[in-house]
């Protein structure tokens, strides 16, 4: 297997090749790279691939050292649908 076909985000099945190509084409930061490829947007919320996505983005953009570019969103652990109603009472 080559690097190109290697899966980086397992939940959304995004490959290394896709991430590197997208980063090079758009010169995007980590957040934009995530939105363009869906890497880090799956079931686990990017718990596993977050640093790898960040690393690829940092090869084409300056890191924003004052902000976590890949923002954290609740819930940070999988929750049951039944419990979801209790979270965030807007």
């Amino acid at each position, binding site marked *: *297997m*080559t*690097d190109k*076909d*290697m*899966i*980086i985000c*397992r939940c959304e099945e995004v490959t*290394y090749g896709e991430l*590197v190509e997208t980063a090079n084409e758009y010169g995007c930061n980590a957040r934009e790279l995530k939105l363009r490829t869906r890497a880090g947007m799956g079931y686990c*919320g990017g*718990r*596993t*691939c977050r*640093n*790898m996505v960040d*690393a*690829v983005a940092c*090869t084409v953009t300056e*890191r*924003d*050292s*004052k*902000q*976590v570019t890949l*923002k*954290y*969103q*609740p*819930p*940070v*652990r*999988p*929750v*049951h649908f039944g*419990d979801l109603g*209790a*979270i*965030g009472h*807007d």
Partner: protein
Amino acid sequence: MADLIIIGSGPAGLSAGITAAECGLSVLILDEYLKPGGRLLGQLYEEPGGKWWNGIEETRKLEKRAAALDLDIRLGTAVSNIEKEDGLWHVYTDRETFTAPSLLLATGAAESPVAIPGWTLPGVMSVGAAQVMTNVHRVKPGSRGVIIGVSVLSSAIAMELNIAGIDVAAIALPKMNEVNKDGANPAGVMDSLLHVSHMAPSKFVQFGSKLMQNDFMKKLGITFYPKGGVKMWGIPVMLRKAVIEICGTEQVEGVILATVTTNGQVVPGSEQRIDADFVCIAGGLYPLAELIGLTGCPFHHIDELGGYVPLHNEQMETPVDGLYVAGNITGIEGAKVAMSQGVAAALSIARNFGRQGLDDILREAVEYVGETRRKAHIQFHPEVAEGRRKMQQYWEEYEAAQERIAPEEPVVEKEVLQGV
């Protein structure tokens, strides 16, 4: 309702809980794992001087003190969200929702993976997972393993596997690509190992540190570093070989190793396959900030501390009212530093709760954190003290800016960010 909720029952959270209870606060500790102790549980190594650091024993001591104080520790309770409303923290878990006016986040560190073809195969795990399986659950992760990533942590865990009678075929670098940068550079890895070598708990990282004191010798050192590795407890530590692929169809069957140049480029034709039934990845640790990332607390990326770290001062206060941090969430360091930070955090919280006469012992506790850091046997980044200095500077800059905005109210309460 408790006065204080602590998320994380690692060395930082447990120490904080004990101190806070001793100050008379009612404390609730939550942890998603089935045992208290956090990352302390897996630790087992010989310190210089021959004393063994056994994390299970150290946890037991903390647990005993916690039990004597009747601390309420809820295990198997994962926190999925936190919010602040009308001066109270709401902590959402898979069991119930808890509330308290003060919240201490002691969620520790997480491990980074590395990107190597085959890393998603069954049988590939983080070194931390192999450590927990071996030392905590007493289950062998496999019969013959390869560790990818050369660091103080991976060499310590290799030794632990060795003690448990598990064959470690090699410790080697990850291949160089856009993800695995620093950890794949032989010269860089050697340099960082040498910086921490004088205090490291393993003979390997102490090796040749005197020899390698200037840059010329270092360059020579990595150029002439034996391609077959240097053996540590019989395990070859390979700074000039990288794993370029993890092989297997249904599960790990082996890895492909290749010789690399001093800056990490694969030497064509040098590939060789070695058999293994499990692979451990040591991609480094970073502060686990997912919960504090929901509070609006400002962050700074500080390499020496392992990544994005929430803004905090030496008393372990954050700029968010009623929110405190301790342990590896503030930067990657050893368990003893985490414990001392936990004590300092608890004293701050008790003082801010109006407990009298704590100023002196809080000052001493803060000094003790620094002293513990200076004496630490295990150091994850050679410049950790510099990282701490940067954080303190960011804190001072933040406070000065707040004073310019609202002179009579230096610490502004942040609104809790809602999900998009």
